[in-house]
């Protein structure tokens, strides 16, 4: 019973303070969230702010990059690393148009493909 309680507290602890291990002569290890952002016409969109949120608290943030509009968030030790992902166009027309902000629940898929609609 005590161990169950300790496991629950530990799970809560690692959810709030994700742990990142790079031990001795080992490589860095953690969980990642990766994917790409496209417009509704299928064009990749660079410079979209992607945020990974857990109970509203930001765990990590990055921008989409390159020709394919890809992004990688992490590394995170706990799984799932977040409960919500937010996509926000922060540079207006510069990245090929103005896009509406989108929030989606986190889904543990191998590669996330997100489509943004034009801003109204």
């Amino acid at each position, binding site marked *: 019973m005590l161990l169950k309680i*300790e496991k629950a507290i530990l799970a809560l602890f690692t959810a709030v303070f994700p742990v990142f*291990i*790079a*031990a001795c002569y*080992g*490589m860095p*290890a953690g969980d990642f969230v990766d994917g790409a952002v496209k417009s509704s016409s299928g064009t990749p969109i660079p410079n979209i702010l992607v945020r990974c949120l857990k109970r509203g608290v930001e765990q990590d943030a990055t921008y989409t990059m390159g020709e394919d509009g890809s992004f990688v968030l992490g590394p995170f030790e706990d799984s799932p690393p977040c409960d919500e992902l937010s996509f926000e166009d922060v540079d207006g027309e510069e990245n090929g148009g103005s896009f509406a902000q989108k929030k989606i629940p986190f889904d543990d898929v191998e590669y996330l493909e997100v489509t943004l609609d034009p801003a109204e």
Partner: protein
Amino acid sequence: MKRSTFERSLRSALSPLYKRLETRVHPLRYLFLEITSQCNLACLHCGSDCGTSKAQGELSTEEWVDLIESLPRKFPEAPPVLVITGGEPLCHPNLPLILDAARRSGVRFGMVTNGWLLDEKRLTQLLGLGLESCTVSLDGLQASHDWLRGREGSYERAIRGIEALARSPIRIFDVVTCVNPRNLPELEHLEKRLVEAGVQRWRLFSIFPKGRARTTPGLTLTAVQIQELLGWIAQRRKAHAHTDFLVDFCCEGYLPRDLDRQVRDEPYFCRAGINIASVLGDGTISACPNISRTLAQGNVRKDDLRAIWETRYAAFRDRAWMKKGPCETCQEWKRCQGNSLHLWDADRGHTCLCHFAAARRGEDVVERIAAQRSDQ
């Protein structure tokens, strides 16, 4: 992901509770697989005493594949991340078969390499097999690196591998440097070279007096040099606070709390046997590969890894037995618990290095106590 000063302070304050819980629950998160002791370099500081040919009695490819395939069954809640290491793992003739077993089993893995065999083509193959993380060793500028690694050209090869990683879509990679008296003055130039190469994470170790480093003179830093190294890391971390380049002191060594926060993102915590295990080349089950063989817990040829993980490892999870030598009367014992376990010197019967005394006073407390004892 860099941590803010506030987050580092909070984590540091809560770390005693976190360590207690993690030790009690001890989820296996990180499993070293020393797939070969064969190596194409001849490092002066090698902790595993590797050679140009593989050692007698090493696990066969089939045994590694069987072990990896069994991990999702043995650890259904979450199989540990595999650290493919050696020797030099890229020397293993059947490495793709071993990595493919991990990929098919859904077990995540990364690799530690000296970079000699890591070119673009090899990296593409490894990424296709599911490599998600990699560490390359770079121990100074050209002359210093080639000297320590015992092979001319090893610096150029390592840089080639690092640049290939920086251009690749790998999820994460870093460079580690074993700091010694020869490369300590070069760190600033090395940092510039790494930034040029596209590196974003750099971990620094000090060479500790074990393995070949114990018998090769001039490899280990003095206490004052350890102080200098830590001060330099703290200063560079400040300088890079708003860049995407992260400089970190490695996980080794209990430090004064304020300094600990300045030189690393994660508060000191020796996770050996708490979250970390290893299967060595001959099947021996231990924790970090550099830990004394006297602390071996079993062998995968005759023991079940999960059963060993759950029922043994007592010496790793209760370290009261390490309160010897310089730790016996130390005020920091409760928080330090004998420093990192791989620094345990089985011959002397106590730790071989005290980072705390070195960092705080520039004092080699281990040698001072040894000298006092021999005088008595």
